[in-house]
């Protein structure tokens, strides 16, 4: 299957940061305006300048450069996977990532967990009047770097400007198209008792990192978010372990949300072994303090993989061999009973239900 528009399959997590640091030359646009004006969204001269000098200049690919109403791209064969997401993370820049990287990686991962090769993306921006142009450029460059890492091209987009006070800095919507090879069939219907449950690394990093920053907690250690495109990792897994039944990226709601989604109305349960779940010491400690269970905390850059038992070790090996899976682990299995339930087996041999998480997690009293 062909690769889209010359992207570099670069799996290094910090590629985004390096790219940003390296681009000492600002785009022409940033040198001219220090913030977004209403007329940047009105469809006239300033809009064209914004598109050409920032988006086209940075995203830099053929379909986009032509500035047509729609991008015409090559059909790379197989079934089409199609995903969309909108992003409004605060703060927009956090240790380990930013809203741009999150947006691209999020959509890439949505496609990849379906067994698709992500190929093309769109990016639509809702910018608040007054939003800092320099920050916008950093976001856009981060998106490009992440797209390059994933080997996708951002081929179409849109920009609107909201009046000051009617937006929240920047909102980004992304859509993505990927191509699923024949024979790849993933879904909860394929999951069966005995299957093993794996994750590609430590859980809770993103949620605790963002929460602790937001709460202004003075932590001796900067917790980094783990936001990253996982399609490279997932490709490796599927190569050595084609009997993967189901994958889902673990985002808001953490492992608990995904686990419950998997078992909902199904004739099987999902058991997690507490001692097997990889969690950074620091995340463990600070989640205690913040009153947030790491199994419920948000993640980026983490995927849950359910695979046939005879291929579990191979899948684990493939993950560990990849930079984004060094701390991968088999954390549980699919059980016959209780049906429709996600549960935790504790270090003490006892069991408790792993409930679907509640929304807003606020830091506790003590």
């Amino acid at each position: 299957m062909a690769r889209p528009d010359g992207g570099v399959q670069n799996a290094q997590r910090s590629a985004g940061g390096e790219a940003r640091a390296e681009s000492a030359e600002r785009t022409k646009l940033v040198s001219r305006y220090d913030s977004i004006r209403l007329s940047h969204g009105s469809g006239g001269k300033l809009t064209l300048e914004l598109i050409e000098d920032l988006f086209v200049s940075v995203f830099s690919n053929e379909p986009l450069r032509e500035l047509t109403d729609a991008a015409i791209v090559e059909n790379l064969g197989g079934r089409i996977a199609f995903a969309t997401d909108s992003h409004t993370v605060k703060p927009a820049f956090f240790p380990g990532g930013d809203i741009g990287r999150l947006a691209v990686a999020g959509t890439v991962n949505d496609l990849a967990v379906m067994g698709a090769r992500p190929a093309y993306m769109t990016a639509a921006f809702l910018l608040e009047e007054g939003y800092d142009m320099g920050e916008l450029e950093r976001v856009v460059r981060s998106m490009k770097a992440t797209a390059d890492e994933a080997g996708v091209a951002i081929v179409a987009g849109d920009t609107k400007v909201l009046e000051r006070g009617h937006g929240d800095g920047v909102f980004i919507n992304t859509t993505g198209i990927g191509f699923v090879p024949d024979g790849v069939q993933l879904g909860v219907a394929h999951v069966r008792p005995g299957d093993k449950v794996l994750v590609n690394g430590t859980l809770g990093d993103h949620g605790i990192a963002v929460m602790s920053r937001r709460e202004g907690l003075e932590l001796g250690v900067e917790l980094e978010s783990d936001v990253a495109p996982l399609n490279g990792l997932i490709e490796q897994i599927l190569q050595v372990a084609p009997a993967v039944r189901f994958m889902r990226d673990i985002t808001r709601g953490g492992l608990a949300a995904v686990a419950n989604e998997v078992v909902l109305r199904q004739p099987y349960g999902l058991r997690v072994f507490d001692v097997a779940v990889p969690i950074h010491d620091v995340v463990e400690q600070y989640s205690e303090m913040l009153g947030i269970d790491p199994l419920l905390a948000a993640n980026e850059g983490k995927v849950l993989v359910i695979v046939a038992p005879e291929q579990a070790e191979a899948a684990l090996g493939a993950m560990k061999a990849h930079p984004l899976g060094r701390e991968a682990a088999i954390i549980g299995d699919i059980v016959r009973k209780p049906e429709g339930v996600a549960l935790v087996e504790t270090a003490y041999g006892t069991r408790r239900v792993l409930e679907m998480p509640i929304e807003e997690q606020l830091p506790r009293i003590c």
Partner: protein
Amino acid sequence: MCLGIPHEVVDVLDQDRCLIRLGGATQHCFIGLVDELKVGDWVVVHAGFAIDKISPEDAKANLELIAKYLEPIRD
């Protein structure tokens, strides 16, 4: 009501402040309520301050107490 996590004292800055560490993370801690702290002591920290310290003697006594609980019943 009482979440408190033990941390090791790694530096005593003054009467009221010290640096504590647990695992990889170091942070400041208010120690105004605990006397005579030295590096290597452990303190239990609740909402940013130390409520008391765990001395080696008390730690030892706690372990001995548990050992006593686990002695078989003697009739």
